[in-house]
């Protein structure tokens, strides 16, 4: 399984970013390889409109099985993510990446 997180940093101890479209990083955990990788999304700050479809496009290209985020994507991103075969879990906005992963594994996160 490949699991994507919206994050404010690049480590397991980093805080999650509750925003989807304007998340600072997308952190990807590949369970098979036990490998944590990142996409720097900070250039999105300067984008006035259409941040979330753009972030959703990046996520689409990563092709994860699961997305864990905070508030959940809005309508535009939702249209993109509907094209990706992806389960979305929300409510992890105040956790670290590690905590979010554990909460997901324990079935404590809400499906979107």
């Amino acid at each position, binding site marked *: 399984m490949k699991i994507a997180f919206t994050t404010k940093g690049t480590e397991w101890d980093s805080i999650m970013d509750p925003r989807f479209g304007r998340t600072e990083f997308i952190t990807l955990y590949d369970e098979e390889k036990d490998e944590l990788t990142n996409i720097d999304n900070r250039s999105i700050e300067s984008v006035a*409109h*259409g941040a979330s479809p*753009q972030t959703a*496009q990046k996520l*689409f290209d990563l092709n994860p099985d699961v997305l864990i985020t905070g508030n959940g994507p809005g309508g535009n991103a939702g249209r*993109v993510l509907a094209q990706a075969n992806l389960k979305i879990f929300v409510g992890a906005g105040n956790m670290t990446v590690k905590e979010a992963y554990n909460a997901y594994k324990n079935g404590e996160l809400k499906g979107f």
Partner: protein
Amino acid sequence: MKIAIASGKGGTGKTTLAVNLASFLAESRKVVLCDLDVEEPNSGLFIKGKLIHREDKFKMIPEWEKDKCTLCGHCQKVCNFHAVIQLGDQIMVFPELCHSCYACSELCPVDALPMIPQKMGELKQFKKEGLSFVESRLDIGQEQAVPLIAQTREDLDKNFDDDFIKLFDAPPGTSCPVIEATKDADFVILITEPTPFGLHDLTLAVDTMRELEKNFGVIVNRHGIGNNDVLTYCQKKNIPVISKLPNDRRIAELYSRGSLIYQKIPEFKKQLVNIADYLLKLQEEGIR
């Protein structure tokens, strides 16, 4: 002469001033009032005229033709607004993000993104005695006010010649819709209230008008409440204070019933006379 009534802060009296000033001026001159606050037009609540024209307004949005598309990805590269994106073997268009610039459509090598009209709102024109009144209203669910404001201004230019005094009731704030509503005005009235909120948003509106290199002046509404900081600010920044409209419970009562105010409150009418004189003098001095 085109005069836009804008504010920065909402609820400071744009519509109150616009409908009363337009009706007053129309007693002796050719006047058209245009409500450009298309997300929430409310001048019409006070101008109960006869409907003489109605039309739907459209904006152009690209529509993907899958059979023609070669998935070259050019469209998403040229879109400045990220309204067109390529996902695997399909192209998605986000109408709410599209600014109708035609770049994707024109630059598509195989014409796979033709522009299709999409209804965004409607324009109505009314007549009440000597006053013409135009309002545009954005459809529910539409997110962009700018294209409808632009089309409404174009309509006004086409249908009313330069003999008319054109008054624009602008949206609040300082973002794109306000800029679109004020950009071809010869003069902008910024109406504010003498409170810290009023002053804060006035300074933003002043900065915006300075950036647009507009001629503008300030009208203080509900004069008597709050403090003197707005007047001190205007003095310091060399901004003309055209008028101070009194704070009066009777004005609020008339407003809440959808009535015009100057016909009932002489102090208010006196201020309108001053404002009209100020504007007509500007016109004589060469601001068209």
